[in-house]
């Protein structure tokens, strides 16, 4: 086959090109021809197709994501905002923290183990590329029905992949979620988050400036991994993809990644790089065009110098390969020798593949012949932007009218008792220990809190005990009922979880998982959810620092529930002041903070007991969330509470049962005046938490709540070995433990 050089492309303007097979639309292909004023070469077509895919270009979501910048609240904490590999926030004492959540949904469905493992690897490199040492990971996961046979194929593979990769890297897995719903049957959501820590002066950005600077590719050799993975895997649905067209799956090597981490951190320490970027989706196409585009524009790359695992790869394939564990650095010539020496020490292959040039073109050569000559901005940052039509789905009104308040409620105390056991033992509400126990939560010795606590927390300074906390939340059922409110509820819950642990929420990252943007109903859900999230962040004062959008999560015409997953990062000055969820000591007084209303739309109770989804999700009051958070943080700092647990899906009874089982102590509850036992136990009103207050602090605590205007209702006391709701029922802890802890192993082990 002849090499399709720039010269050849100019001479053969009418040659047929497989733009459609590469996922480009006709007008997009025309636009490339217009930009280049000729037909693209094969290599250029490969680069444009992969970089203009939904996954890389955010072409459908961009117009909505803009709000995160426009509505960003003033925040002194934000050091680096949206647009870089990951955002960076100031956490005090000279420390900065970078964090981000990304999706690896489609690859994890095809090959669960490697898909999930490389998802962890990818997000860790994003964090590393900012100059930070990765210190913890979290994994929000969603699968089909817990009893569906395919869940038994996908879930164990995903969990083993996350555990395998993270454990080999020596990174604690401190949180996340596991949710089951039939809507995720053909589209499991495997989101992965990472937290990294650095000093302020260590922040590194992805840009290539300074003509003469060398472009160095280092890490693993390039093979045929995931070629076209980005444009095919992440952008179109599976149905059209028969086994024959399956792109090669990327396989990760965590030990190589560990070397890459240590090697990169040593390079940072000696200040040897002018710019740096990890290689993820779209591989070298992405790294070279983004680095050049963020700098002055000029870069020349000799593609045949790239070290290969498979010598038969074509230049197009090398540009599109998604081989894992690779990074690209821009290094001033005088630092190249030292850079190479450090790579050699860590046994990491490093190769100068090009240099930054004076011009404004990205030029790529193959054995001396030019195969790419493009303005890099047109590849990386000025891709197509779609204002996709969106419309509120016709079924939305009927769904919201199908009020969960109409569902039959338990008629007797015995029935209520049975429903409590049923809910706390349902797959979504049951203990996820069987899954999270497969992850190493305590490696490195800095983990302060991990699952099943409300938030994960790690210490980042051994002297001062400074720490950071993170919680991830998302509720697709709420978002289906009302995407605007659902997104705010996800934000509010993660915010509340961080505050319940005693940390102050600072900023957020999000992973927005939706169906096809070509469906106006899905696009409406997306528009509403992003608007809700941007408004919510503005009100709470927590800027969005970055994140990821995953579209086309659907099988045929059926999309997943809109699932915005929000990760909130918080800081705590002294981790010894953290608040756990455990009710451990008899005599502690239980207080319910916030207002409980008749809110059952999208609730766990309506799902588990009635298989129902309808009505409106709980109302959101962000001022109340802020107040609740302030109270929880103050109470933690001043030692006024021994335990706190946020209330969310499953309601009060779920929180109480979790806290009792965690601490091994029972609770006696009294239904407050004005509430039915049923509403008291199962309502999912937002802006609430349950706290355990030592008797000695009761007055101080209630005075504080009273002074600040937060409703605090005494609902009982920690005591005995059962959960008792006075006048209703008693359930021994042992019975609750069996229901709560044996459900997941029973289904999946």
């Amino acid at each position, binding site marked *: 086959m002849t090499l399709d050089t720039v010269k050849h492309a100019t001479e053969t303007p009418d040659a047929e090109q497989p733009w459609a097979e590469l996922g480009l639309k006709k007008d997009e292909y025309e636009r490339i021809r217009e930009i280049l004023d000729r037909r693209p070469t094969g290599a250029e077509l490969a680069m444009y197709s992969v970089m203009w895919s939904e996954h890389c270009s955010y072409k459908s979501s961009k117009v909505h994501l803009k709000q995160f910048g426009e509505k960003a609240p003033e925040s002194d904490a934000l050091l680096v905002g949206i647009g870089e590999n990951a955002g960076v926030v100031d956490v005090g004492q000279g420390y900065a923290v970078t964090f981000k959540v990304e999706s690896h949904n489609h690859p994890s469905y*095809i*090959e669960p183990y490697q898909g999930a493992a490389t998802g962890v690897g990818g997000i860790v490199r994003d964090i590393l590329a900012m100059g930070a040492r990765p210190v913890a990971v979290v994994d929000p996961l969603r699968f089909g029905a817990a009893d569906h046979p395919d869940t038994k194929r996908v879930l164990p593979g995903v969990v083993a992949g996350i555990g395998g990769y993270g454990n080999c890297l020596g990174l604690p897995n401190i949180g996340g979620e596991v949710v089951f719903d039939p809507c995720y049957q053909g589209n499991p959501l495997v989101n992965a988050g990472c937290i990294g820590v650095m000093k302020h002066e260590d922040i590194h950005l992805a840009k290539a400036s300074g003509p003469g600077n060398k472009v160095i590719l280092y890490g693993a050799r390039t*093979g045929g*991994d995931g070629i076209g993975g980005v444009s095919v895997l992440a952008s179109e649905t599976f149905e059209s993809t028969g086994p024959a067209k*399956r792109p090669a799956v990327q*396989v*990760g*090597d965590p030990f190589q990644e560990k070397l890459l981490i240590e090697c990169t951190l040593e390079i940072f320490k000696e200040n040897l790089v002018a710019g740096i970027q990890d290689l993820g989706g779209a591989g070298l196409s992405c790294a070279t065009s983004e680095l050049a585009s963020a700098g002055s524009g000029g870069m020349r790359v000799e593609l045949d110098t790239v070290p290969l695992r498979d010598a038969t790869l074509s230049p197009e394939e090398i540009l599109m390969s998604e081989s*894992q564990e690779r990074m690209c650095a821009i290094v001033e010539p005088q630092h190249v020798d030292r850079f190479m020496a450090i790579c050699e020490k860590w046994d990491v292959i490093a190769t100068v593949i090009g240099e930054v040039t004076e011009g404004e073109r990205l030029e790529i050569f193959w054995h001396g012949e030019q195969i790419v000559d493009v303005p890099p901005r047109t590849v990386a940052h000025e891709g197509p932007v779609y204002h996709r039509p969106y419309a509120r789905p016709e079924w939305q009104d009927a769904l919201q009218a199908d009020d969960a308040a109409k569902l039959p409620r338990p008629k007797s105390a015995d029935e209520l008792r049975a429903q409590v056991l049923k809910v706390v033992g349902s797959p979504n509400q049951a203990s996820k220990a069987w899954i999270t126990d497969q992850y190493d939560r305590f490696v490195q010795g800095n983990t302060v809190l991990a699952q099943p606590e409300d938030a994960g927390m790690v210490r980042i300074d051994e002297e001062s005990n400074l720490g950071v906390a993170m919680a991830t939340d998302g509720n697709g059922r709420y978002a289906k009922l009302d995407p605007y409110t659902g997104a705010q509820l996800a934000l509010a819950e993660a915010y509340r979880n961080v505050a319940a642990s005693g940390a102050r929420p600072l900023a957020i990252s999000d992973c927005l998982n939706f169906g096809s943007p070509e469906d106006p109903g899905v696009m409406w859900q997306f528009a509403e959810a992003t608007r809700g999230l941007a408004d919510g962040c503005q009100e709470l004062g927590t800027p969005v620092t970055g994140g990821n959008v995953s579209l086309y999560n659907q099988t045929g015409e059926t999309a997943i529930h809109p699932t915005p997953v929000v990760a909130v990062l918080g800081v705590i000055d002294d981790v010894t002041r953290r608040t756990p969820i455990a009710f451990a000591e008899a005599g502690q007084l239980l207080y319910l903070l916030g207002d409980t209303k008749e809110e059952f739309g999208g609730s766990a109770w309506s799902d588990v007991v009635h298989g129902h989804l309808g009505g409106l999700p709980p109302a959101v009051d962000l001022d109340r969330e802020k107040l609740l958070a302030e109270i929880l943080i103050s109470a933690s700092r001043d030692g006024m509470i021994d335990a706190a647990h946020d209330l969310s899906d499953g309601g009060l009874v779920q929180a109480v049962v979790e806290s009792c089982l965690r601490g091994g102590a029972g609770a006696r509850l009294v239904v407050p005046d004005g509430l039915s036992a049923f509403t008291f136990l199962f309502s999912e009103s937002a802006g609430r938490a349950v706290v355990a207050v030592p008797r000695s602090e009761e007055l101080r605590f209630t005075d504080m709540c009273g002074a600040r205007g937060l409703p605090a209702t005494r609902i009982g006391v920690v005591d005995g070995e059962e959960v008792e709701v006075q006048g209703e029922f008693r359930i021994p802890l042992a019975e609750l433990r069996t229901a709560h802890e044996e459900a997941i192993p029973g289904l999946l082990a």
Partner: protein
Amino acid sequence: MARVVVDVMLKPEILDPQGQAVQRALPRLGFEGIADVRQGKRFELEVEGPVDEAALARIHEMAETFLANTVIEDFVVKVESDPAKAES
């Protein structure tokens, strides 16, 4: 009893960290001249009854659904010893 062997190898384009680790170790141990190493799995199946077409089809199905992960691996089915045929 007949023995049927199923050899499972990672597809050529798939990264093989184990093979690479072996390859890196070889020169350290004084074994030079090996350009690449790829590591696979071998299953030896002792088959009850005759190894006819139906039995092989069954083993093929077994390999495809369980022994190999065909998303990332290829497999080959070989009849190693078949006493029924040896006698005839």
